[in-house]
Structure formats: structure tokens, C-alpha cells
């Protein structure tokens, strides 16, 4: 009976853990990243994932002329300085936050509409632990008419 109870508890913990992690990532995106987009209007899209140190993410999006944008890249505190760059269709790097003090956001506007790629890199830290760190990284967009 005791063993059944123990296994049942394990089962519940096991079943709920991924959901809890996802929910934490959502709350992180909402409370940390979305809030920082102000005075830009968040577009309502959600792009967030748990990333390991050393891991990369890419996001493709079309940005429109006559609109001002704020890109916000937010990483969990334990991940260190998350690097991001903005790359155009020809592969030209238009911005890299490592040359701007690892600023988490970038404001820009366009003279003509463009599809751009956002490349996000989680740094590898030289901690004492052998275990790779992981944490939530959110990519969010705000806009306003120019």
C-alpha cells in the first residue's frame, strides 16, 4: 500500500514537471520580457523555450516599413549574457548586442520591408558544476507606428 502511494506521488510529480517548467517559461516571458517592451505594443506572439548553455536559436520574421520595432531577448538569470544578432537575407549582420554591452533589446525601423533572422546564442559558462545550465529564453516583439 505504501509503495503504491509512493509510486502514485512519483507519477504525479513526473506528470506535472514539464507543465510546470513550461508555465514558468510563460510567466518569465510575460513578467520579464513583455513588460520591458513598453512603450511599444507587444504583438501577442509567443516565442520561448528552455535552452541549454551553448545552444542556439533562430527566428525568422518579416518586419515592415513605416513601423518602429523593439526586439526583446530575455534570458533567465542563470544563463549569463545572452547574445543575439540580426541578420538580413544576404547573411549580413545588421546588429549584434555583444558590441552594445549585451543589451537585451534593440529598437529599429525600416525604410523598406524585410525578412530578417534573429540568431540567439546562450553562452557557455565556466562554472564549477559539470552540469550544463538551462533556462528560459524568450524572444518578443513590440511595435508602434512610426
Amino acid at each position, binding site marked *: 500500500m505504501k509503495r503504491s502511494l509512493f509510486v502514485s506521488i512519483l507519477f504525479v510529480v513526473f506528470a506535472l514537471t514539464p507543465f510546470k517548467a513550461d508555465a514558468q517559461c510563460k510567466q518569465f516571458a510575460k513578467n520579464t520580457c513583455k513588460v520591458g517592451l513598453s512603450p511599444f505594443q507587444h504583438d501577442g506572439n509567443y*516565442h520561448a523555450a528552455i535552452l*541549454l548553455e*551553448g545552444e542556439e536559436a533562430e*527566428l525568422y520574421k518579416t518586419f515592415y516599413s513605416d513601423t518602429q520595432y523593439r526586439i526583446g531577448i530575455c534570458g533567465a538569470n542563470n544563463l549569463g549574457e545572452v547574445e543575439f544578432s540580426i541578420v538580413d537575407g544576404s547573411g549580413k549582420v545588421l*546588429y549584434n548586442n555583444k558590441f552594445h554591452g549585451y543589451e537585451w533589446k534593440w529598437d529599429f525601423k525600416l525604410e523598406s520591408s*524585410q*525578412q530578417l533572422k534573429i540568431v540567439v546564442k546562450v553562452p557557455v559558462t565556466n562554472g564549477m558544476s559539470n552540469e*550544463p545550465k538551462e533556462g528560459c529564453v524568450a524572444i518578443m516583439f513590440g511595435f508602434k507606428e512610426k
Partner: protein
Amino acid sequence: MNIKLLESGKQFILLFAILAFISGSCASDKSKENKNADNSGLSDDFNSEMDDDLAEKINTAKRIFYSLPSPLETAMLIKSAGANYDGDLLNKVENTSKYNTNLKMALNLGIYTTDLSYASLFDQTQATLSYINAAKKMADGLEILDAIDEATIRRLEENINNRDVIIDIISETLLNSNSFLEDKGLQNTSAIILVGGWVEGLHIATSLVEKGANLKTNKLVERIVDQKLSLNIVVSLLENNKDNAEVQILLKDVAELSAIYDKITIEQSEITPVEDPNTNVTTLKSESTIKITQEVFDELARKVKELRTRYIS
């Protein structure tokens, strides 16, 4: 499920082990896929004994996200192009009772949220209330829990004359809905909703272009042509979920749109970023020239109308 099975400790442990194995397999598979899934937990005790090769694979795997303009951004683009409000273009809220399949509910959740965003940006208070209720019916039908709850609707009603608050509520509703689908691994539903909203944006925009408009200088036409830049994103979103039969239907639809967009050309010069040190805003300087004939525009408008009519039927 057989109750006796659950009552047996040994069999329960076996069941647990099987579930653990299945779950572990799914997580590993997902980590290798280039899709916008959130695959792992936040736990601090990452398995330190993980095989080095597997760790290397996970570390070098790239998460790929594809982002279409959200219903809010679509509505803003239409408005900023100088378009007017025309409520007759929107999907009737009475149609909600017709949508009984997941495909129709997902498509029309996208369509109604675009209509909602369009109505709210033009301060159409009654339409805003009607469309959030229509969107709620679709979200409820898809079991997207709490995306639009009664409290959201009450808050909207209480702030119906405050556009900034209304837009914030819509933005939060979209975020809740998107994150719920992401968390539940329902990327196929998410993709269908996005495509529904995107096609609705095209429908509103193409319908609002006045007959005889100069295609070279009309801002709304420019926005419609700009969607050519997002076509590969639409295709990638759907391709990532092509195991789903409903997604395959949409892939065919998008291929037909793509064939028409192939007749439109966009020539772009090199982009030069110039930062304003006073505002910290960077301008991406470039020139763009579009070429579209009246025949191609009419063909595109007809195709959009055909697809959208099917989606709302």
C-alpha cells in the same frame, strides 16, 4: 482503464516505467527537431551522467522559430496604410455555430482574432465585444483553456472606450492562447490559427484596395505585396506539422497563393544600418521596388477570396 491493474503495485510500477520511457523518447526526439517546441524542463538537476554524444547533439541543435504577423500587427499594418473600417468584410459572428471541426475552429479563431484586432483599432466598440465572444467560442471549442475567460470579457467591457487597454487585453489573449498551444505541443493547431489570421488579413486588405488604385503607389497594395516576404515562413510553419492531414490541405492552399506571388517581383538594395545616437533607434536604410500588374493583383484577390470563403463556410 482497468481498476484492478491500477491496484496492483507491481503493474503500476511497470506502467510508470513505460510512461517514463515513452516520455523520455519524445523529449529526445524533439530535441533533435528543428521546431519551435519547448522541450525540456527547468529543473536544476540536469542529468550529469548524460552521454557526451547526446549532450553534444543537444548543444548543437538549433531551435527554429517562424513568426507570422500576429492579428494585432496585421490590423495595425492595414490601418497604417490608410485603410478605412468596413465591418461588412468581416466574418459574421453568427457563423460560429457552423464550425464543429478542429480545422474550422482553428482557422476561424485566427480569422475572428484578426477581425477583433481590426475592429478594436478602429474603435468599433460593439464589434470588438462581438468578436471577442466569437473568438472565445472558437477557443473554448478547441479547449484552449483560459485564453479568453469571463474575466477577460468583463475587463474588456469595463474598458470598452479605452483603446490602449483593449489592445493590451487582445495582446495578452493572443499570448495566452499561443503559449497554451506551445506548452501542450499543439503546434499544428497554432499553425492553422496563424494561417487563418494571415489569410483574413489578406482578405481585408485586398478587399479595401479601391478599384483603379495606382498599384505602384498604393500603400495597401505595398502591404499585400510585402506578404511575399512571409510566404516561406508560412510554408515552413506548415511543413513542420505536415503529418497532420488538415495542415496538408493548407499547404496546398498556400502553394496556390505562392504561385501567384511568384508573378510579383520585389527588388531590394543592400541594407545599411544607421543608428541615431540621440534616440538609440537604428534605421535600416534600403530601397525596394515592387512590380505587380493589375491582372496579377486581381488573380491574387480572387484566390484569397476563394480560400477565405472556404475557410468561413
